[in-house]
């Protein structure tokens, strides 16, 4: 009897918490549809309503989807990783420079990129998890380190042509057509989109059904209770950073397939887009709450804003950055107000 009384309010509170957080996700999905439909109405003459526009958003953001999945995993533990943009840059540079000069082939270089990502994640994870340094400081150093190493490999503007690597070129330009038509065109997607969707589904299932996925939520919710439950908090943190950097490397390959080029300044600000996608998608910065599906919609919102600005053609190129930052600001403030209300209720 006594336990029943004790359990009841706890269960009710849990329900409320889920409602508050799913509300954020619903706002996000609604925002995406509002933005997209607004774009369709405003720019219908420029072909915005064509289904291919949507698939183009997916194609150009395939890399970002992978990166945002990794970012969400790190943010679930209450950490953050701002080195992802630079890591994507070094991945692109390794792919472009390596395929041209080291003769390892497309798949060999992809393997190199993934190993680099794993090592990078391991070092960052060790500093954050084992040494207990603030994740922001570690990953900021990582950001500058990776950007600098990109310059060490080459400071030139490289592009991947069919001469550099026939395999990579063919894979990147392979089009998978849909068996139906929209406005007289058969819409298509690229291999990168397939990779990113597979990553999205795998991470979604992992977070939901595996022990590791759940321990990410537990560590982010409360480190102390997680360690009291017998979870290895340090190891979980290290693994989350390794996972993030690994997904980042996969994202880097997708990104490179889309741009087919590499330069030192590439993918600057990608970390911002990944973080804002996760936050917009309902991942709490304090950790413990979030979902990759929300992050996916966050990426789509970012992509839609970019596409709308590009379709307009008259707006300055810095508008997407400003709008992304404003959206991030809006959602961060919303989150903190939710948290304040929750703590007041207690």
């Amino acid at each position, binding site marked *: 009897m006594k336990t029943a009384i004790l359990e009841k309010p706890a269960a009710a509170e849990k329900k409320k918490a889920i409602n508050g957080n799913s509300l954020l996700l619903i706002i996000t999905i609604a925002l995406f549809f509002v933005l997209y439909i607004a774009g369709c109405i405003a720019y219908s003459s420029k072909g915005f309503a064509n289904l291919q526009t949507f698939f183009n958003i997916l194609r150009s953001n395939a890399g970002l989807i992978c990166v945002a999945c990794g970012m969400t995993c790190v943010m679930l533990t209450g950490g*953050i990783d*701002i080195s992802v943009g630079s890591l994507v840059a070094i991945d692109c540079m390794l792919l472009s420079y390596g395929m041209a000069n080291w003769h390892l082939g497309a798949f060999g270089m992809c393997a190199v990129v993934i190993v680099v990502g794993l090592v990078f994640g391991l070092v960052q994870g060790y*500093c954050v998890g*084992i*040494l*207990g*340094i*603030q994740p*922001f*400081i*570690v990953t*900021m*150093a*990582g*950001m*500058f*380190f990776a*950007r*600098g*190493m990109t*310059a*060490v490999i080459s*400071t030139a503007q490289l592009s991947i042509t069919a001469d550099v690597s026939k395999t990579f070129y063919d894979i990147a330009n392979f089009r998978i057509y849909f068996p139906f038509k929209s406005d007289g065109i058969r819409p298509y997607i690229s291999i990168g989109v397939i990779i990113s969707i597979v990553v999205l589904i795998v991470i979604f299932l992992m977070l939901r059904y595996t022990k590791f996925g759940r321990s990410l939520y537990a560590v982010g919710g409360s480190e102390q209770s997680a360690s009291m439950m017998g979870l290895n908090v340090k190891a979980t943190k290290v693994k989350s950073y390794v996972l993030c950097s690994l997904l980042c490397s996969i994202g880097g390959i997708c990104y490179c397939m889309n741009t087919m080029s590499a330069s*030192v300044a590439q993918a600057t*600000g990608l970390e*911002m887009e990944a*973080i804002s996608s996760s936050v917009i998608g309902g991942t709490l*910065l304090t950790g413990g709450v979030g979902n990759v599906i929300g992050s996916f919609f966050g990426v789509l919102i970012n992509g839609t804003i970019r596409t709308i600005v590009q379709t307009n053609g008259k707006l*300055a*190129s*810095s*508008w997407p*950055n*400003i709008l*992304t*930052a*404003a959206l*991030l*600001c809006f959602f*961060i*403030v919303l989150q*903190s*107000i939710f*948290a*304040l209300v929750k703590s007041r209720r207690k």
Partner: protein
Amino acid sequence: MNKIKKITKYQLFLPIFCMLLVLCINIIHDIAVGGFSNGLDFFKITMTNGLMGGRIINILSRGSEIAILAVGMTLVVSASAGTDISVGSVMSLCASVCCVLLAGKAAPQATELAVPLIVAVLAAMGVGCLCGMFNGALVAHLGIQPMVATLILWTAARAIGLLVCNDLIVYVRNEQFQALGNYIGFFPTPIIIAAVCITVVALFLKLTALGTYIQSVGINKAASRITGLNSKLIIFLCYVICGLCAAIAGVVAAGRISSADSNNIGLNYELDAILAVALGGNSLGGGKFNLAGSVIGAFTIQAITTTMYNLGVSSAVTPVFKAVVVIVIVAIQSPAVKQAFAKINARRASGKEVERA
């Protein structure tokens, strides 16, 4: 042995040690390149065309921006246990505002000042204050982690700067404006501006109780509130001062190149400023701070950068070394490493006792 321990515990040990290390590398490099007669080239002060020159003056002049930023950053780190990563972007935004106002209708190529210099500088400082207030409100009043809150302006400020400049590089080729970043008479102006900023802030902290308040809030926010300090207001003020410092640094940087290059002004300066604070022996976890340490740290970093160029390392590669230095310093400060050191020391001490017995 005990003496060495005492010296290493002194807070200014780390920055001064690093400075000496950099100087030694320079002297060795000079001797290796040009023989013993060139050994002290580093300290040589020359007068060319009536302007003060020489490597040490160059470092002091170039390092002024970082020193000004480091002053604001020290306060932010001390009060909120977090860093303001938007300083570089805010620098760029303030430089753009200043230059666009000065250029007026003649943008992007102006030689005449459209408004008095002081008005444009004050406007830039106002924008810096606004940025600081935005960051401060998010951190102090909404309780958002400092780095996440400043992340917003980190992207947005530079983008807004580009928007203000209409995606162009606005040149203001006017002697009055150029003097801000170059020379007044024979002496480099940035050094004077940095000295004034540092003195004003240091005096302000010494003469009022603000310095003590900031440390108290940084050590324990809740306890400070209970003793009657307005913790939120103090943290807010720190961010405003940091924004102001970024604005001054931005104007100096713009004056140096007599233009507002939004994409490049203040690029990677946030790393330099944070590194300066860490090198100064200040804990990045907040609490006690030492302004002198941060300033020495700032000039040490500029010395490192200049030395890198001197050794022929590309400017794009220098962040690699700085990133490694940051990680090493922060790792030494981290609790895990401190515990490990304490264990080794304890083992040694117990070993000695066993020997005695």
